[in-house]
């Protein structure tokens, strides 16, 4: 993503009468913003509809996966439009990046990317309404103010509702967005208020919202028989028995969606009921060609990784100073190996998509996706259909976590729909399909060595990272930053990398790469701190040094050491961290605490956990303390707290509950939640306490950055209680 491209700055606003008396403002506003880090240029169409009853309909443009954007983005518009939240009705827009700009739920990017553009869209519309009022009353616009959907002329005591100005306002030239005046934060009436999720009342009354709930006249259903081995191809099939079953309409060979292109074959069984289609699968006979993939297994990856770690890295990620001399001259060295497994996303709503191939060769989708624009492109490439010949309706999404940044279900559903033109068809994975056809968080292995000087400062740092790749480069979500902390502040560093191959598709899992790197580096730094006679917060303070931005990769946000220090100090204060972990232990049992910090997705988070080790070596997190810095403004405190709590508890799941995805003879073996267990309520701490650290930076997102630090905090707490250092995930004692 380019951070600085400036699009055409001309903006225009087209107004049209739509839906009777409702006036439609369509602001096609080509704008861009430059914020430190990867902020893409945004061309948005702020969709504000003012009804005759002064109700204001605001379009929510991004996919809602539970991160709260369907509420939060309209809050930004409503604030600057200066309407009362009670007047606002929110509609999910369709996917159309030409109208709405980038529509992605990923990277905790919605807040940083939309903080200004959404407010500008609201402010532009407000300014036009004010201009219309000034003209109506023959007064200077500067003498007018707005409040709760009305323009006020205080000098004369007059007021007029937006509804009564909307038609005139629509013919006012659109102001230059860069020049529209935005509210001062101390006058915010909506931003900064706790606002409940707009869909909450519907969710708790069972109103259909999700992709899986799509129901259309004449709709058909499809279940899949997928090649059990990723990358395998269909050699042949016999559907004679299936086709005789009542309710079965077709068996359709389909392909693609995972990697590599054109493979990952499957058969789609189309029926008048999903249950019928799914049950018929038992009688469908297919043979697959997967000889080329059958050698991949969890065990072979581990063996190859161990061999690679013993040799020199195949390539360099980052080098500084003379690492060999620095290690040779170090007063103390610490060496350790860390590893983590493949993981699935396990969204609770299984992957699904409804598609309709119309008589005129168009495709219409009802898609629970985090990334509809990418889905459009993928379908276009796979089916040879023009991107413009697709309509994509975005449904509410029953969990994303990165799984739905990929659009295999759209590609597959499109192929099924093409086979039954004129009939909408809903394709639905079952749980085993979902677990075995994921874009997995890739496993990784690290061999780390640190050298300390006589004062305990880190003077040398080496990491050999074994990950998965192709053509000399890491595959999706398998990379490591050359600037991984504390590399940039250590005088002699060598980060090197070696690659394994896999047939599995890999992908981004909530806080991608960070969920693994935080565990590795904050766990290892806890070992280094111990060697230096310090606790981890103190080692971090000394290593961070004076407040400054560290060097960043191109288009990546800079790591500011002062902001890191701020949350570390805040969480220590909140948790009453004393410098020495308050541990009561007897024979490896008892309670203790650990600390972790991480910077990811522009957010700074430091976390402390209290854990108890039980008689049977069970590890229970009793309490979590979180300090977070996501800039100057918490837009929706209620949702912010939800995201922070959810992310921290999700980290507990990765640390203690989730089991590695196991691959044998090329195939993932897990079937369901008995062998890929998710975190349940009895593993949840009684309390997650938190504090926000406000800093003078633009607000950034919260879907991800609270997750990574909790994982090393738990590992470090286990060390404090038991004396054992666990260096692979999930943490297991005994």
């Amino acid at each position, binding site marked *: 993503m380019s951070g600085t491209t400036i699009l055409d700055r001309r903006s225009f606003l087209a107004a049209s009468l739509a839906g009777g008396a409702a006036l439609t403002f369509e602001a096609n506003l080509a704008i861009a913003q430059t914020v430190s880090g990867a902020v893409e240029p945004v061309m948005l169409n702020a969709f504000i509809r003012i009804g005759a009853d002064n109700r204001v309909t605001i379009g929510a443009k991004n996919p809602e996966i*539970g991160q709260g954007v369907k509420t939060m983005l309209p809050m930004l518009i409503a604030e600057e439009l200066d309407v009362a939240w009670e007047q606002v009705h929110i509609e999910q827009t369709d996917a159309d990046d030409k109208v709405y700009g980038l529509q992605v739920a990923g990277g905790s990017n919605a807040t940083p990317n939309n903080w200004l553009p959404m407010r500008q869209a609201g402010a532009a519309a407000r300014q036009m309404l004010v201009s219309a009022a000034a003209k109506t009353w023959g007064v200077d616009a500067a003498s007018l103010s707005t409040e709760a959907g009305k323009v006020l002329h205080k000098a004369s005591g007059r007021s007029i509702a937006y509804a009564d100005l909307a038609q005139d306002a629509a013919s006012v030239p659109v102001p230059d967005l860069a020049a529209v005046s935005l509210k001062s934060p101390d006058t915010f009436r909506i931003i900064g208020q706790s606002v409940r999720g707009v869909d*909450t009342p519907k969710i708790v009354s*069972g109103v*259909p919202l999700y992709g899986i709930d799509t*129901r259309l006249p004449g709709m058909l259903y499809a279940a899949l028989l997928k090649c059990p081995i990723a990358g395998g191809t269909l050699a042949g099939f016999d559907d004679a028995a299936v086709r005789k079953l009542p309710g079965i309409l077709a068996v359709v060979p389909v392909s693609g969606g995972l990697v590599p292109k054109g493979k990952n074959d499957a058969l789609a069984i189309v029926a008048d009921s999903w249950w019928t289609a799914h049950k018929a699968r038992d009688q469908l006979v297919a043979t697959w060609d997967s000889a080329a993939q059958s050698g991949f297994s969890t065990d072979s990856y581990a063996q190859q990784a161990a061999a690679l770690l013993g040799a020199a890295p195949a390539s360099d990620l980052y080098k500084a100073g003379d690492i060999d001399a620095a290690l040779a001259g170090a007063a103390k060295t610490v060496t350790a190996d860390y590893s983590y497994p493949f993981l699935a996303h396990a969204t609770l709503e299984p992957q699904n998509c409804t598609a309709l191939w119309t008589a005129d060769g168009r495709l219409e989708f009802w898609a629970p996706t985090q990334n509809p624009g990418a889905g459009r492109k993928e379908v276009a490439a796979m089916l040879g259909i023009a991107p413009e010949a697709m309509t994509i309706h975005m449904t509410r999404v029953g969990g994303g976590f990165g799984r739905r940044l990929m659009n295999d279900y759209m590609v597959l559903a499109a192929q099924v729909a093409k086979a039954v033109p004129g009939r909408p068809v809903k394709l639905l994975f079952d749980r085993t399909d979902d677990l075995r056809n994921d874009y997995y968080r890739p496993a990784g292995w690290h061999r780390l060595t640190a050298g300390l000087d006589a004062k305990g400062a880190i003077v040398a740092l080496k990491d050999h990272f074994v990950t998965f790749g192709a053509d000399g480069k890491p595959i999706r979500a398998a990379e490591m930053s050359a600037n991984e902390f504390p590399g940039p502040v250590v005088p002699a560093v060598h980060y090197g990398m070696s690659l394994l191959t896999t047939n599995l598709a890999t992908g981004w899992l909530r806080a991608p790469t960070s969920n693994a790197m935080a565990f590795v580096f904050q766990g290892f730094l806890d070992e280094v701190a111990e060697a230096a006679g310090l606790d981890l917060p103190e080692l971090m303070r000394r290593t961070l040094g004076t407040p400054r931005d560290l060097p960043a990769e191109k288009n990546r946000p800079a790591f500011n050491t002062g902001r890191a220090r701020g949350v570390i100090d805040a969480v220590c204060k909140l948790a009453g961290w004393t410098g020495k972990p308050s541990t009561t232990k007897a024979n490896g049992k008892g309670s203790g605490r650990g600390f972790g910090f991480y910077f990811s997705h522009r957010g700074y988070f430091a976390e402390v956990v209290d854990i108890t080790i039980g008689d049977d070596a069970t590890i229970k997190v009793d309490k979590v303390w979180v300090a977070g810095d996501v800039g100057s403004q918490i837009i929706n405190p209620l949702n912010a707290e939800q995201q922070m709590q959810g992310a921290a508890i999700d980290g507990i799941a990765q640390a203690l509950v989730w089991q590695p995805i196991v691959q044998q003879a090329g195939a993932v073996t897990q079937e*369901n939640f008995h062998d890929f267990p998710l975190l349940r309520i009895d593993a949840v701490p009684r309390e997650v306490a938190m504090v926000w650290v406000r800093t003078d930076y633009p607000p950034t997102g919260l879907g991800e950055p609270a997750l990574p630090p909790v994982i090393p905090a738990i590992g470090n707490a286990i060390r404090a209680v038991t004396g054992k250092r666990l260096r692979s995930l999930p943490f297991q004692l005994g």
Partner: protein
Amino acid sequence: MAISLTVNRRKRTIETAPDKPLLWVLREDLDLPGTKFGCGAGLCGACTVLLDGEAVRSCQTPIADAAGKQIVTIEDVATLPVGKKLVAAWIDLDVPQCGYCQAGQIMSATALLTHTPRPGSDDIDAAMSGNICRCATYLRIRKAIRQAAGLNTTERAA
């Protein structure tokens, strides 16, 4: 075969295979999609409904086993006094994130408070441990149940 049952206070008769799970009858035949499919194996609780007042996993309940029974789903749970309080607490505390599991959570909570009007913390965890929330809204689920039960909602670690 024709199977009759009462769903959300309405007598319904469905022509269906007797082994079709109640979940899919609700979703496909009765147009009640509030009850969710998560695992198909009784492991996640997303499909929880009340069958004669007991929380059951509808994905594991063949429709034949529901013949003649009273079913309550999320679409109608607020007509029960306990369900009404729970739904109100769920809204007040804004429990959902993605929201996909919440119907099942509310149905399990309804069964809990029906049998145990003043549950302790361990009672809540035990009764709700069959319901997975992938977004981890568990802290608010606990709090909403306590609020609906008229209990102190402030929970602190020991």
